[in-house]
């Protein structure tokens, strides 16, 4: 990474504790603002709130394999626009990120072309097949320094393979991130929350219990092995109950929730619009309430976008035949502000925790999620908390347009993102 950037002086910022001041970044780290040199680049941030750079534990960047839908360059540009300075890139690329070489490809490409740090997530099993362990240790030892492993998109359904994976990564403090979906209970046709709407529309049901039984099994395996488990995109009240029990018991489990599961409900699928087809599916309002509460009380640790770009031709099918997933990086902060801050459920300290500090800890990234103090890496995002806009799916830095928020009025706060002292996004 280049260290020859001009020093950056940001003046008049507000901090989450209500205090104000200036920030100076030299050689990629915060230093005493009084030591600003003459050739400094100045940014006037009067009236803007400074947050540590956001960290997404769950992004799909599609490179290699589907560069028509997203690349590391475009995905990280979208991330920067959303206020993120680091993202974890899930392993379900083509080929799958299941070797050290594959992880290094993502890592190296991001260093060359990325507008944010990209931490590759390694596959748990070879080819995501759920049969044999991938080379977890070699990925951990590689330049990419992989710490999180996940077959995301698929569940590690075999309990013995899950046990072995948890045991194995203890050697290097790895974490197994599980896409909790029992493949028998939520079978091949499952595409919509199982309930009144799926029954009426005749859509294959994805029952809540298919998630919570896997979470229950996995937290017990995490207890047995003493290892770290991370539960991806928790979507049900039942899973929250299991997580609450596990945390009270001291089991090393963390969990994330997506912005869309904090705001949208299964009612969105009533028109069969495949934009709202996502895995796990959107759930009823009671689950949304339980997820918000779990993010308040710490049962859920982090927000993860599950940013899942898709080409038009992969989405414009009958609902059951369309690809799963929706975009999320550019709108995540706005949705969390709408659902959690504006509703008074959490304060800015908690927002920083769930969107920056906690995800960095879960991913094992010591250069991310740090407070905005001298000596910290120069990552931040400047936001205007009151700014709102109508979301336009056409106006995006992602290569894809499967944006579930199109046409909605949402907070649109991000004004400037700085990653390691370098401006990666600036509102024009």
């Amino acid at each position, binding site marked *: 990474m280049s260290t020859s950037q001009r020093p950056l002086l940001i003046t008049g910022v507000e901090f989450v504790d209500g205090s104000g001041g200036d920030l100076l970044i030299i050689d990629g780290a915060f230093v005493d603002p009084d030591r600003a040199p003459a050739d400094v680049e100045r940014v006037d941030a009067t009236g803007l709130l400074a947050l540590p750079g956001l960290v997404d534990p769950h992004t799909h960047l599609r490179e290699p394999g589907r560069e028509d839908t997203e690349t590391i360059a475009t995905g990280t540009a979208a991330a920067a626009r959303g206020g993120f300075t680091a993202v974890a890139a899930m392993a379900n690329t083509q080929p799958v990120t299941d070797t050290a070489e594959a992880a290094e490809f993502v890592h190296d490409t991001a260093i060359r072309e990325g507008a944010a740090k990209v931490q590759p997530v390694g596959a748990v099993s070879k080819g995501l097949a759920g049969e044999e362990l991938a080379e977890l240790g070699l990925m951990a030892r590689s330049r990419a320094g992989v710490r999180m492993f996940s077959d995301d998109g698929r569940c590690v359904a075999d309990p013995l393979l899950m046990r072995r994976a948890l045991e194995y990564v203890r050697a290097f403090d790895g974490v197994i991130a599980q896409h909790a979906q029992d493949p028998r209970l939520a079978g091949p046709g499952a595409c919509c929350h*199982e*309930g*009144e*709407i*799926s*029954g*009426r*529309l*005749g*859509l294959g*049901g994805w*029952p809540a219990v298919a998630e919570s039984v896997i979470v229950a099994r996995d937290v017990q395996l995490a207890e047995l092995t003493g290892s770290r488990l991370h539960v991806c995109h928790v979507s049900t009240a039942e899973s929250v109950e299991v997580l609450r029990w596990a945390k009270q018991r001291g089991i090393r489990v963390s969990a994330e929730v997506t912005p869309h599961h904090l705001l949208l409900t299964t009612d969105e699928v009533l*028109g*069969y*619009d*495949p934009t709202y087809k996502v895995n796990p599916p959107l759930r009823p309002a009671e689950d949304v309430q339980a997820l918000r509460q779990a993010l308040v009380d710490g049962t859920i640790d982090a927000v993860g976008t599950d940013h899942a770009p898709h080409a*038009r*031709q*992969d*989405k*414009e*099918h*009958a*609902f*059951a*035949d369309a690809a799963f997933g929706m975009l999320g990086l550019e709108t995540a902060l706005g949705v969390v502000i709408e659902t959690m801050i504006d509703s008074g459920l959490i304060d800015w300290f908690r927002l920083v925790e769930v969107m920056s500090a906690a995800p960095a800890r879960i991913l094992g990234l010591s250069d991310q999620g740090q407070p905005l103090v001298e000596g910290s890496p120069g990552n931040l995002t400047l936001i205007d908390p009151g700014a709102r806009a109508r979301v336009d799916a056409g106006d995006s830095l992602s290569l894809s347009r499967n944006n579930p928020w199109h046409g909605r009025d949402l907070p649109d706060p991000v004004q400037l993102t700085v990653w390691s002292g370098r401006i990666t996004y600036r509102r024009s």
Partner: protein
Amino acid sequence: MRNLLSAADLSAEEVFSILDLAEEMSEVQARPIKKLPALRGRTVVNLFFEDSTRTRSSFELAGKWLSADVINVSAKGSSVSKGESLRDTVLTIAAMGVDAMVIRHSASGAPAQAAAWTQIPVLNAGDGTHEHPTQALLDAFAIRRHLRRSDPEAEIAGKKIAIVGDLTHSRVARSGVSLLRTLGAEIVLVAPPTLMPSGVGTWPVSLSTDLDEVLGEVDVAMMLRVQRERMSGGYFPTPREYTVGYGLTRDRLAKLKPGAAICHPGPMNRGLEISADAADAASSLVLEQVAAGVAVRMSVLYHLLGGEEDQ
């Protein structure tokens, strides 16, 4: 009526209007020369993403007897494998200048999505495990005719109808419940709990897992087809057990009220959900349902396409 996507979209007045016109159309069906000029110059496309000779032929005859030009497009498996989206397929057909699309698809909601993408009237000819509204209309037509044989003023309102079998996967059941409720029928759904749709408790029907308990009270027993894949899917233990629990056996035939009608959307698994005795009983409407299918579809096509010239 701009589209016919779901039986739930139809008001009682619209249903009566369709059924009454279908009565007139059925007279045409009985003539030696079966041709009305109503849709001359109009083009109807049968866009079938899923095979169904029976339904396709019925729509094809309905269109032709109204003098429409009918083309059949079998898109089964083609578009997805070629990378073309459903939207592209629908817009391509629409761009050719057709006047209505009759769509059959293995996925629920496909006709509704098509209707959202194009201005051309869309008629749902069966979508996944969702709906099959013309089937519900033809069932109502056949049932009403049956009732009127003994009472010319008879209506479906107030009659009790049992719908029996694989309710979870049945588009016939979903459309039937909506439409027959709209007409004021009382409905009891009968199935093992594994074949009851999720959320069925909120439907405007009563539920039973005991066919023998309801059989003596109903005016119509509508038996649903059991699909082969359900037999190995763990929905019930064996075909034998299904028949003993939920088949319209010869013994159960004797429990029906005198004159109670038997319906089945076909094709029948004789000996599984319906015995030969029941299928061929005097009160069985099975073949009348097929005949009613053409008349009802003529009426629906006329309602979708024929009205414009009158305005």
